[in-house]
């Protein structure tokens, strides 16, 4: 038995020793221990170094509110979790944990020099210090700050674990399985409600687990707990979830609950989920989160061995662990007396109870006297001593000036209680100041939710049970024999004879924020509590200010000179406790992180060794390298083969929308800037779509299949937004039109055949369509069959060559592709990818919306004024095109650029200037939008948006690029076959 274990107490199993290591040293605990309770049982309080000053720190609390005892939990390669609270980490055989923020080890820490120089690290230190000179920002300051920042080891490899997620539904969700939560669950279960009860701990019961001398309806508290849990387990309308933390409360009673499934198990079979995130939609939410004890802010309050009084009570009652042999209790609240009594009754010596109040109740006084405990009223602890653990403290009585010293190995503090408002705050519930409690309590609910028990400011087990029952829909009234909860006072500053500049009184342990820092922030002009919080970083650590917020508020409100209820509380934000990214990602990991959309022909391209690129969420063949070609060589070959003979391209990703109905033409006339009235069935037209603001939104070839039917194509990435844009107008502004829209992108596979031999290739496979030049001219569409499969056959060209786009039902896509590819061997058919497609279209000056336009380009800017109908009465974007800004001189125009050195390929995005010798900042005229090596022309070509570009033809402009500035001449953006003669090969 360890030195500090009290046999026969608590819920731990004395017959089941558990071996674990902390910082490489072997220890033994018991089944049921947390790392914190097991270390305390071994007399270990020192568990870490603080964030900023590297001060030695020990265990403060006993639950998820713990600010200090953060450890790295090591489950092997790739499985180190930093900043795990030792107070919630269940031990098992072989557990490995390491302390953090220390080097070379916890007892001798080099970083401790920060503590010696702490007078140089006040609030806002980083903002004030790392400012000038600017040349130091990236070379000196950033490496220094990065080195200092962060707690614990960051993972070095990707997380090998699996995480699950699931949706949950219930009538009543209860957060917290303490007395209030359990009573609520029992009551709601009786009402045939579907109930989910969640608790972050391994054992349900909350405060009942360590309650001493409490009787509920004549039963010992633990017996009542057992009985109630049995009732709940038997009820099939109740789910009790343990090790499950409600991390966030979102709109309409949607609560995220993270369940930890395996962290407490020594060996886990591969593939088993480590955590499971439940997204629960509840009819009603009952919050029974309890309260958190407040530390006292006094000089030396962060020394290992100084802890919350209630934590000592929990360690004794739930784990059978004495936190020390010689204990001083320092309090401003009655509740700490109970802790003192329970420890005293377990034969732990209480050296003194120090109370800042001058008077306490007669009952308490008697109970103290009965145990012969030294009681010092009207006094406070003025300093503590001990290097790595407290070994004594000095008590100062302000009224007499008397100082007394006590030896101790633990100091318990209590500054009263704070109702836990975290989830209530997530739900945007209102709060009000309760002067008696000196705390904020819930007020107006914003959801169908209620707080019960301590988190509602109703402390005590009887109050919790009755409030829980009522919230669960029951009427039962409990009778509980329990120590009185009592009352307390809150001071913004504890009396001390030591000059405040020489004190180390911590408010936020985890972020090393002291009383002085908060007062300094107010002196420096930060009056809003939100600003004080951010300037001092109080409450911004991984514990979200669970123990520090109210103390900080008290100090700040006095410093600002405003009543605390006027200062307000900072907002709590999810998650309630630190949550793994794995839990949030769930199954959306690796291949499932972002789904990849593939065409029917994609597997063929993959088998051919294509290199792919992402286009939106599509993956498209980028180029098809042969015999170790690089991209440049492959693209040059693909371009040449297509222009010389025959290329085949998978264009299935083109967006497609079927526009059908008696008013289809009227609708098209409104949605596109072109006119559709004159387009005959069987013919195609390039369509330009504008937004209402007059800028180019999308483009694509549109085929009129029949009087009342259009086959619209859109850009690959634009399909969803074009569809939405059309639906929006049809359903709202153009409701009078009888038109139906259907997205058909996935229905059609599209094979583009380009090159002088295109017609010769497909002719033998086509049925029912006369392919001759006159019968099937450029920009025509026909329906028939190809390879025996129904097709919509377009004669169109995005390359400038004779071209066909073969639309076939998707599931025939690969068969038709393979048939044509096979037949194409006699023409040396060349499969090409998106890069070659881009080069070929750029040689022709065809734009890519989103590359050559950027949402601020009008049709006229792009040199496409011809695509804007002059006679239409109305279309989307028409009025905006007449806005003065859009017709003003000096707009950027899309032009071609030819570099003086034909071998130079400009960088896309490069800036363009008129005079490279102009002093900086130069006037930038625009930028390069598209730029490629053109194998057909034996030189580079580029397109660019340039201010006043149309009026700069033949002008030489300058393009600064890394190393040198290139000269380029402004030309029309059609580089290849400007007359379009190649479309007409026979």
């Amino acid at each position, binding site marked *: 038995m360890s030195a500090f274990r009290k046999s026969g107490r608590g819920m731990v199993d004395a017959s089941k020793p558990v071996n674990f290591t902390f910082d490489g040293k072997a220890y033994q605990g018991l089944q049921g221990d947390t790392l914190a309770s097991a270390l305390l049982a071994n007399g270990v309080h020192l568990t870490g170094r603080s964030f900023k000053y590297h001060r030695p720190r020990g265990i403060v609390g006993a639950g998820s509110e713990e600010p200090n005892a953060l450890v790295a939990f090591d489950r092997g390669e790739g499985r180190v979790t930093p900043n795990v609270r030792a107070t919630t980490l269940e031990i098992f055989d072989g557990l490995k944990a390491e302390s953090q923020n220390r080097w070379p080890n916890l007892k001798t820490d080099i970083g401790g020099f920060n503590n010696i120089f702490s007078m140089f690290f006040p609030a806002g230190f980083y903002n004030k210090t790392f400012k000038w000179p600017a040349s130091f920002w990236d070379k000196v300051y950033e490496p220094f700050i990065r080195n200092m920042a962060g707690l614990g080891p960051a993972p070095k490899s990707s997380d090998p674990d699996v995480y699950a997620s699931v949706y949950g539904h219930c009538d009543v969700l209860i957060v917290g399985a303490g007395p209030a939560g359990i009573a609520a669950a029992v009551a709601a279960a009786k009402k045939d409600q579907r109930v989910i009860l969640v608790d972050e701990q391994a054992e349900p019961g909350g405060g009942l687990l360590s309650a001493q001398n409490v009787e509920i309806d004549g039963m010992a508290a633990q017996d009542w707990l057992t009985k109630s849990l049995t009732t709940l387990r038997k009820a099939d309308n109740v789910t009790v979830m343990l090790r499950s933390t409600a991390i966030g409360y*979102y*709109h*309409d009673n*949607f609560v995220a609950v993270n369940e930890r499934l395996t962290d407490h198990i020594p060996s886990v079979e591969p593939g088993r989920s480590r955590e499971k995130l439940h*997204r629960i*939609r509840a009819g009603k939410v009952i919050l029974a989160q309890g309260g958190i004890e407040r530390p006292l802010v006094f000089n030396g309050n962060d020394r290992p061995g100084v802890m919350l009084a209630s934590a000592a009570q929990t360690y004794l009652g739930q784990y059978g662990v004495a936190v020390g042999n010689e204990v001083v209790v320092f309090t401003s609240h009655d509740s700490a007396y109970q802790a003192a009594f329970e420890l005293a009754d377990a034969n732990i010596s209480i050296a003194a109870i120090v109370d800042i109040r001058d008077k306490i109740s007669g009952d308490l006084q008697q109970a103290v006297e009965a145990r012969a405990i030294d009681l010092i009223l009207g006094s406070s602890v003025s300093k503590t001593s001990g290097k790595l653990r407290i070994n004594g403290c000095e008590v100062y009585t302000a009224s007499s000036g008397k100082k007394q010293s006590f030896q101790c190995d633990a100091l318990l503090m209590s500054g009263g209680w704070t109702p836990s408002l975290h989830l209530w705050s997530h739900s*945007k519930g209102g709060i009000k100041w309760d002067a008696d409690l000196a705390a904020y309590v819930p007020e107006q609910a*914003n959801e169908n939710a209620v707080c019960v028990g301590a988190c509602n400011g109703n402390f005590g087990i009887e109050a919790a049970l009755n409030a829980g029952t009522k919230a669960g829909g029951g009427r039962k009234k409990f009778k509980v024999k329990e120590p009185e909860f009592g009352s307390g006072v809150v001071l913004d500053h504890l009396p001390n004879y030591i000059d405040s500049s020489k004190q180390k009184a911590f408010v936020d342990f985890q972020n090393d924020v002291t009383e002085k820092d908060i007062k300094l922030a107010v002196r420096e002009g930060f009056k809003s509590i939100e600003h004080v919080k951010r300037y001092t970083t109080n409450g911004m650590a991984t514990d979200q200010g669970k123990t520090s917020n109210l103390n900080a508020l008290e100090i700040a409100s006095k410093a600002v000179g405003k009543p605390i209820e006027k200062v307000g509380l900072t907002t709590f934000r999810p998650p309630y406790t630190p949550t793994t990214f794995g839990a949030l990602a769930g199954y959306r990991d690796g291949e499932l992180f972002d789904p990849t959309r593939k065409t029917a022909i994609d597997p063929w391209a993959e088998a051919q060794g294509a290199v792919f690129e992402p286009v939106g969420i599509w993956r498209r063949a980028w180029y098809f390298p042969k015999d170790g070609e690089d991209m440049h060589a492959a693209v040059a070959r693909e371009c040449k083969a297509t222009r010389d003979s025959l290329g085949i391209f998978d264009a299935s990703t083109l967006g497609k929308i079927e526009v059908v109905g008696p008013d289809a033409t009227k609708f098209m006339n409104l949605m596109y800037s072109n006119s559709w009235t004159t387009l005959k069935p069987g013919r195609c037209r390039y369509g330009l779509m504008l937004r*209402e*603001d007059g800028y180019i939104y999308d483009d694509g070839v549109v085929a009129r299949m029949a009087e009342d039917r259009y086959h619209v194509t859109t850009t690959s990435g634009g399909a969803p937004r074009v569809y*939405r844009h059309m*639906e*929006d107008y049809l*359903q*709202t*502004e153009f*409701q009078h039109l009888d038109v139906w829209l259907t997205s058909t992108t996935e229905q059609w596979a599209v094979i583009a055949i380009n090159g002088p031999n295109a017609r010769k290739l497909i002719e033998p496979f086509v049925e029912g369509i006369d392919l001759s030049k006159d019968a099937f001219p450029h920009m025509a569409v026909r329906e028939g069959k190809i390879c025996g499969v129904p097709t919509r056959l377009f004669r169109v060209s995005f390359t400038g060559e004779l071209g066909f786009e073969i639309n076939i039902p998707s599931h025939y896509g690969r068969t038709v592709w393979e048939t044509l590819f096979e037949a194409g061997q006699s023409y040396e058919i060349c499969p090409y990818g998106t890069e070659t497609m881009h080069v070929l279209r750029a040689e022709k000056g065809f734009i890519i919306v989103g590359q050559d336009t950027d949402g601020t380009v009008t049709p006229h800017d792009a040199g496409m004024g011809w695509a804007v109908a002059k006679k239409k*009465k*109305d279309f989307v974007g*028409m*009025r*905006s095109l007449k*806005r*003065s800004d859009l017709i003003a001189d000096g707009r950027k125009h899309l032009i071609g650029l030819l570099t003086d050195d034909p071998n130079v390929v400009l960088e896309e995005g490069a800036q363009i200037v008129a005079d490279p010798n102009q002093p900086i900042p130069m006037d930038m005229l625009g930028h390069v939008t598209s730029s490629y090596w053109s194998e057909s022309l034996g030189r580079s070509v580029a397109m660019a948006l340039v201010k006043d570009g149309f009026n700069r033809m033949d002008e030489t402009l300058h393009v600064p690029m890394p190393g040198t500035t290139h000269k380029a001449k402004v030309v029309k953006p059609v580089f290849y076959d400007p007359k379009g003669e190649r479309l007409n090969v026979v």
Partner: protein
Amino acid sequence: MFEIHCPYCDEKRPEIEFAYAGEAHIVRPNAQDQGEMSDADWSQYMFIRDNVRGEHCERWWHQHGCNMFFNAVRHTVTDKFVMTYKMGKSRPTAKQIADAKK
């Protein structure tokens, strides 16, 4: 995450099925009015939106459901939906909004 009542499906559905679509009741001027509108008036229609603190009429799209656009009244402080209604219905009166809250 909200539960949103789609007035066409007449059902509450989770927010992931919906997409926000901007302020409601901004009517596109007809062709003739467009011709007569000054740049300033057109800009008012095109670009200027209310930024109310309180009940806001806004459009939502049941994108992954029935595909319909509809209108909603939502409170910009609490984020709460007060009511939803079909496209084409006029802006709810103060009384209708008050009734919907009951």
